[in-house]
């Protein structure tokens, strides 16, 4: 098992495995998007309270979920990088941090487009919205720190430490914001107002969540391959690979 992991994590093997996986995940991603969009935009009936505006859920919830999932995987990669010094972990961090920030931004902006017709305002200082905004700041801090450190090895370790500090703090931040929010406003706005969710509404949502996950995987694999090419361009196997 351990040997297998090490073998997989060698950039050369990862590069080749990623190359064979990418077409499959992209096809899967396209199919899931197709089903999710048709199901979500056409087949699902309008919500009895929110009308057609609820259809924003199919892009909003997957973005929000991915913004958190990517952060958790970044923190796991950070631990792996610090403890076992696996180069691949840092490559994953380098390419997924901007993607995580992009999903966080999407969750916030689609949330604003949902909030305007439902609550009458683009932004409320709701606990979830505020936590998501702070998550965006943390992502941008990690990216800024990586960009500022010239040496790759140091950038890897510094961002790994910051990511781990972040994963310890994010629950505390989220709790404190939730607590502050209940203190300030009597009633809290719940984002998932649709409590009764019909299967016709739910299945496309699952499809979209899986589509987003597949999309993120595909992009991370493509970007990781690019990063491996860039970092290992002097190595024998890359030169051999490029020659044929």
């Amino acid at each position: 098992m351990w040997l297998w992991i090490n073998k997989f994590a060698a950039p050369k093997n990862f590069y080749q495995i990623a190359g064979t996986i990418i077409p499959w995940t992209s096809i899967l991603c396209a199919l899931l998007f197709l089903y999710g969009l048709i199901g979500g935009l056409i087949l699902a009936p309008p919500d009895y309270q929110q009308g057609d505006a609820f259809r924003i859920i199919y892009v909003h919830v997957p973005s929000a979920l991915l913004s958190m999932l990517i952060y958790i995987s970044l923190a796991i990669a950070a631990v792996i990088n610090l403890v076992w010094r696996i180069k691949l972990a840092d490559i994953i961090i380098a390419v997924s941090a901007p993607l995580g920030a992009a999903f966080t931004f999407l969750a916030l902006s689609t949330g604003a487009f949902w909030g305007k017709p439902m609550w009458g305002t683009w932004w409320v200082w709701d606990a979830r919205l505020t936590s998501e905004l702070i998550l965006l700041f943390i992502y941008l801090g990690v990216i800024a720190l990586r960009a500022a450190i010239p040496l790759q090895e140091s950038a890897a370790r510094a961002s790994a430490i910051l990511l781990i500090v972040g994963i310890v703090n994010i629950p505390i931040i989220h709790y404190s914001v939730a607590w502050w929010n209940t203190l300030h406003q009597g009633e809290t706005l719940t984002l998932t107002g649709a409590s009764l969710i019909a299967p016709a509404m739910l299945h496309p949502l699952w499809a979209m969540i899986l589509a987003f996950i597949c999309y993120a995987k595909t992009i991370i694999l493509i970007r990781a391959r690019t990063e491996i090419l860039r970092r290992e361009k002097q190595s024998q196997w890359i030169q051999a690979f490029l020659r044929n």
Partner: protein
Amino acid sequence: MDHLSYHRSFWLILRYELLIACRHYTELLNPLLFFAIILTLFPLAITPAPEILQHIAPGIIWIAILLSTLLALDKLFREDLQSGALDQLLISSQPLPLLILAKLLGHWITSSLPLILLSALLAGFLQMAYPAIKVLMETLCLGTPLLLLIGAIGRALTLRLRNSALLMFLIVLPFYIPVLIFSTSAVMAAEQGLSVSGQLAWQAVMLILALPLAPWATAAALRIEI
């Protein structure tokens, strides 16, 4: 150095830190001046009306404290890096987190304590009344060590970079949000005559969590070669 006990090395570092601070006491005044100027700007920018000032005073003071603390943190480890004292710490046989804790205690005494005393004075200028000022002092006493512990991680991560102060601010400020929330809400609750033990307990819990963890993360960050 090997025969030094942990206890003794802690005190040596602390004494060294305090001595350095006393020799450069004019530098210690800058964050205090910055703090006082920020507090002056708010009544000018918003309103001098006492009832409004009284309402927003805890928030103003705490934001000013966050910024002044970060400003003062900018020089933590920096002179040690330039003088080579930091390398001595890194290769010492004593546990690095312990030495960092001693440095932070020294930093708290020389930078945060004056800020706390000054805010007690300036809180009156913002029309805060007695029970609220007392709670403000309590939150400051619990909160400022936490700010230093978290800030030291950011300081260590950005230490060897050029123009690192702004980057440190960006990295550290999001992590200050829980301290800010619990502190200001405690002071506001005190103004309304409510119990503040919940907020103070949360701050104490965060402080107890940060005391062992943050110096450890700071030590890991300091060991990164750049």
